């Protein structure tokens, strides 16, 4: 490891080199592997097999029917593996009854709690058909625990894949049906998961660009979430207020409003940073909380939909909708095109204009920027304004493209996720778009992982934290994979201490 730390002296190695993206890709791989480990060790069956008493019997010998989903997960163990001392659960009515396996029928003391080995094996086919479940303790049968862990991880990641990309067999069947009959309904149904992944990627692109642009200017904008809320609020307001405008005016106006909302929420901490030196990190976090409260108040007061008992805004006019490309249930909308255009614009702004050059110089070395005559304070405010505006677009996009009204919980944390995302994309617009596609896929797959495999969606948050750690400390990844540092690494993130 010591030799890896001296990256500058080591000669670049071509082995295992993925260009500049080697570390990010491997970071995601390691993150997913560790996420799988988390799924495995938190799996109810695995945990139960590790506990001293493999079965947690609620009362008497009747297994709590609430846990039968756990029981079914343990089904695939082969009946021939049964030995004396194992516990077998048989379905009876809506619940399960538990039997301890004893050597022969003569050994049965209490037929309500015990069963002989032969009969248990004879009823084995039913074990595989969803009628019963076995959980063996780790001490008796270590293999079982590993099998259960493997099943849990496989099930979770399979659900993730099906939920984000789609079921390949359904897609091909749907396509065949479309070619045969001209009816695209089942093809659209099969394509919905991948469309949902793209739809989820759109706000990630905007929010990721927002954070990335901040990083380039040396600012840690952790307030993308609040900026998303304010952008969405203003876009919603314009969306349902100016109802008699033609779409060609109304839609751009609503998008602009979203940008302005986010930009205001970015400029305030930017201004405070530039004028007083108050660190933007704490201020943007505080602005997040304030934004949540404001939206919560607006949706219960001035912006509440008339007659609605819930805190939701009125539905926006159709002239402000971002058009959707395909029929239901595919919700892919024009926001994707807008997001890609904005990514190109941000790339152009950062790398081809004077403004971008100044922002990057201020980010890399504010003192150098100052002595070469750049106005550091103004650049900080501009950077936070643009950054906020980009996040605001993410909010506008969600309202105008998908929900068409504002509700309190419309963002599942796009702003927070985008920190990891921007780091993963090395704060470069191209990297951000790619990372956003990955995060969109993960997030939309995680929803089905939660419903199909009972793995909470927060696993994605944990994986993100790991990815941040690995990206920020590439030595860890290089150490795991015995990579050599690839020459001079460009530092893409600069943050500052308090009040400088």
């Amino acid at each position, binding site marked *: 490891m010591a030799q890896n730390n001296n990256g500058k002296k080591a000669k670049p190695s071509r082995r295992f080199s993925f260009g500049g993206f080697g570390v990010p890709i491997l970071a995601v791989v390691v993150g997913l592997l560790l996420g799988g480990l988390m799924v495995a060790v938190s799996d109810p069956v695995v945990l139960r097999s590790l506990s001293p008493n493999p079965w947690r019997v609620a009362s008497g010998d009747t297994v709590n029917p609430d846990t039968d989903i756990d029981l079914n997960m343990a089904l695939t163990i082969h009946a021939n593996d049964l030995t004396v001392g194992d516990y077998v659960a048989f379905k009876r009515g809506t619940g399960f009854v538990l039997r301890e396996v004893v050597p022969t029928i003569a050994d049965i003391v209490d037929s309500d709690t015990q069963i002989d080995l032969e009969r248990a094996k004879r009823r084995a086919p039913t074990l595989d058909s969803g009628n019963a479940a076995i959980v063996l303790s780790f001490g008796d049968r270590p293999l079982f625990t590993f099998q259960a862990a493997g099943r849990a991880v496989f099930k979770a990641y399979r659900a993730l894949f099906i939920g984000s990309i789609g079921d390949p067999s359904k897609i091909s069947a749907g396509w065949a049906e479309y070619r045969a009959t001209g009816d695209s309904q089942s093809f659209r149904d099969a394509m919905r998961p991948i469309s949902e992944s793209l739809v989820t990627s759109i706000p990630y692109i905007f929010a990721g660009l927002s954070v990335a642009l901040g990083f380039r200017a040396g600012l840690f904008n952790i307030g993308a979430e609040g900026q998303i809320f304010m952008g969405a609020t203003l876009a919603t307001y314009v969306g349902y207020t100016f109802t008699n405008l033609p779409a060609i005016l109304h839609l751009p106006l609503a998008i602009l409003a979203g940008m302005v909302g986010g930009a205001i929420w970015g400029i305030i901490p930017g201004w405070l940073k530039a004028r007083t030196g108050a660190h933007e990190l704490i201020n943007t976090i505080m602005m997040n*909380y304030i934004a949540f409260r404001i939206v919560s108040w607006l949706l219960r007061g001035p912006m509440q939909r008339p007659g609605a008992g819930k805190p939701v805004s009125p539905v926006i006019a159709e002239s402000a909708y971002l058009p959707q490309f395909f029929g239901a249930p595919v919700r892919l909308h024009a926001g994707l095109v807008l997001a890609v255009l904005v990514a190109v614009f941000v790339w152009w702004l950062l790398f081809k204009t004077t403004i971008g050059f100044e922002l990057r110089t201020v980010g890399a070395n504010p003192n150098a920027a100052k002595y070469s005559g750049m106005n550091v304070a103004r650049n900080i405010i501009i950077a936070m304004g643009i950054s906020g505006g980009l996040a605001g677009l993410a909010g506008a996009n969600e309202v105008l493209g998908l929900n068409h009204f504002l509700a309190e919980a419309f963002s599942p944390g796009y702003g927070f996720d985008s920190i990891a995302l921007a780091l993963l994309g090395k704060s470069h617009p191209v990297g951000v778009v790619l990372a956003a596609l990955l995060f969109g896929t993960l997030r939309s797959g995680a929803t089905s992982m939660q419903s199909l495999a009972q793995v909470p969606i927060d696993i994605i948050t944990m994986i993100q934290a*790991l990815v941040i750690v690995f990206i920020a400390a590439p*030595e860890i990844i290089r150490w795991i994979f015995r990579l050599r540092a690839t020459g001079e690494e460009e530092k893409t993130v600069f943050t500052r201490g*308090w009040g400088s």
Partner: protein
Amino acid sequence: MSVATATVQIQALTTAERKRRAIFGIVFLLFGAAILGLFALNSQSGQTTTFGLNPGFTSNAPKIPDLAFPTQPVLYALGFIALFLGGWQLARGFKSYAFVFSGVFFLFVLAFLAWAARDGSFNLVGMLQATLIRSTPIALGAFSGVIAERAAIINIAIEGMMLAAALASVMVASATGSLWLGLLGGMIVGGILGGLHGILSIQFKVDQIISGTAINILSTGTTSFIVKRFFIDPNVNDSLNNSSIFQPIHIPLLSDIPVIGPVFFSVNILPYLMFAVLIVQHVVLFYTRWGLRTIAVGEHPKAADTLGVNVFKVRYINIIMSGMIAGLGGAYFTIGRVGQFDEVMTGGRGFIGLAAMIFGKWTPLGSLGASLLFGFADSFQQKIQILIPGFPSEFLLAAPYLITMIVLAGVVGRAIAPAADGQPYEKD
């Protein structure tokens, strides 16, 4: 030549100082005008305000008469005091703006309470006690920040450490039935996260703010994951997320003092521990060899290293201690208050603690003062909802965050952080 440059710099500084002084003066004047315009003019001459001086709960302290005063004259007096302070600030200037700012703010709040409780009564002691209790996690967060940043490690991860410790302490306490073990569990988890922050920022030289953010995200994700995966089952929730809470300890004699007794000496163990941490930290930091080494490492690690101080060791120990103190603060949320964990229940208190640390100029005593201010804002917004029904509670809930921003903006430029704060140390 060099003298001339120095003079110019002093001139520039004083211009900035003058500007800041004027801004604060105007702010004080505005507070004074607000007291007069919003409250004094909106009250009638015959009205009386009563501030309750006896706690609402049973206490050892003897009952004393409540404080009753005519509303309007007192409001006028408070308003004119604020105006006077503003004028003085504009004309002469105070040395410590932060202190006077707190004073003027306090006047404003007092006026508001007097006005809101006109023709009624308001339990002052109850609110002061709530202030102390709500300051506790913020102060512990601030102490956690002080000990880390004095060794030049920015600990933005206090929030995440608190959150993880809150969950850990309630789980340990529920499983073992011992609150003390729960407290220990919270501190250990905090210490582990502190160690992680140390490994990342000392060993791997990760940008400390990014490392801290990663820890925050990690503990948000992990705690929510555990809640959703396990506590969804009511049986598990009952056995792992349902503990008792620390009961108030009435200190003999001291708790018999009116007003002060119920506020300071009839609380549960956590505020006492907070004061213990305060005293120990103050003494250790400024009067022991270890503290001086810590400060040296924070100001000039290279010099400290030259003199034989092991910079890495000091930083590791301090960041782990920082995590343990944050863990204590996290334990407050569960076993100190409700005995149950909710997702993201710390609600930014760790970050507010950081702001309190900056406000308190990286000293334990100053941090406590700032934390009391934030705790006051926090308990204040609660009482307002009782005093003025119908006032949108969302604005009041946003108040602590807004005050944090104002305080940061007013103070951070003047407060001097440890010189090496945030810089990884590279041994040549």
